[in-house]
């Protein structure tokens, strides 16, 4: 009786094994974050009200600098994972070779200012994007997220998730090397 099932059964098993092997094939842990898959594009022009200074604005020109790389960090007071990266951002702020800017996304001014006052403000400047129009222009998918802007004025990398020392060393530093020579 088993004989009639034999061939289709074998084929089915082979296909299942093949499919399984393909689905569970080894993949790089966060291939979504792989820098080589990211297509750089010029930093779009934008103007945001400053979160911290009255009547001041944070624009693309504030961020662009021909001599150094800039980081744009998207954060919000309602974003729990942002708290995880905050201590490291405070550390990064001390590095003179890196300019760290913040964009506060979909937050009330009060909540955002409160956060920076209690946890500390690591940013050179913070833009307030309540409506989320600018972050879409920058290709952001959520918070926390960090963009790397080259001295040439291109967004060359985007990391979705909390910026940890590990992430910074693995993904950001190698991209900043060409300029440090």
């Amino acid at each position, binding site marked *: 009786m088993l004989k009639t099932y034999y061939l289709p059964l074998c084929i*089915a098993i082979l296909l299942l094994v093949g499919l399984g092997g393909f689905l569970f094939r080894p993949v790089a842990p966060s291939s979504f974050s792989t820098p080589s898959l990211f297509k750089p594009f010029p930093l779009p022009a934008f103007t945001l009200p400053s979160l911290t200074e009255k009547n001041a604005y944070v624009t693309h020109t504030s961020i662009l600098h021909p001599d150094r790389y800039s980081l744009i960090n998207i954060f919000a007071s309602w974003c729990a994972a942002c708290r995880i990266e905050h201590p490291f951002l405070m550390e990064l702020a001390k590095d003179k070779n890196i300019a760290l800017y913040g964009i506060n996304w979909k937050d009330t001014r009060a909540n955002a200012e409160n956060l920076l006052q209690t946890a500390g403000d690591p940013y050179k400047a913070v833009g307030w994007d309540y409506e989320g129009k600018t972050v879409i222009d920058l290709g952001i998918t959520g918070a926390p997220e960090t963009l790397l802007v080259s001295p040439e004025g291109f967004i060359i990398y985007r990391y979705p998730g909390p910026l940890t020392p590990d992430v910074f060393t693995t993904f950001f530093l190698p991209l900043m090397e060409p300029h440090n020579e």
Partner: protein
Amino acid sequence: MSKYFRTLLFVMGCLITLPLHALTVEQPLSQASQEEQAQHLFKDLRCMVCTGESIHDSDALLAQDMRRKVRDLIQEGKSSEEIRHYFVTRYGEQILMGPPFSLSTVWLWVSPLLFIFIGSIIFVRSMKRRV
């Protein structure tokens, strides 16, 4: 159901609507043809923080912002092609829901059909045995 219980259920039912205030009320475009264009584009664009949903259906913050951006771009006079290109520049090809049938996804489509085919052969054969 006791009267007390029914009242409790009613109150809970009312309270459950409280989180709805978090949903921003979206303004459709005033020109019907523009809004129609917007709705079409919503179905073309992927919600990057949802599983397999387009921004047409999703309530995620990102989807809301993307929908607003699509409407803004339409009002600026951008064509659907230009709008798609705008998102692809910023998010990569993956932002498009796109044609689901391509060289890389052909097995995704074919394998279930193959299994059904094989399964039905086995089934028919076993039925024949029983006769």
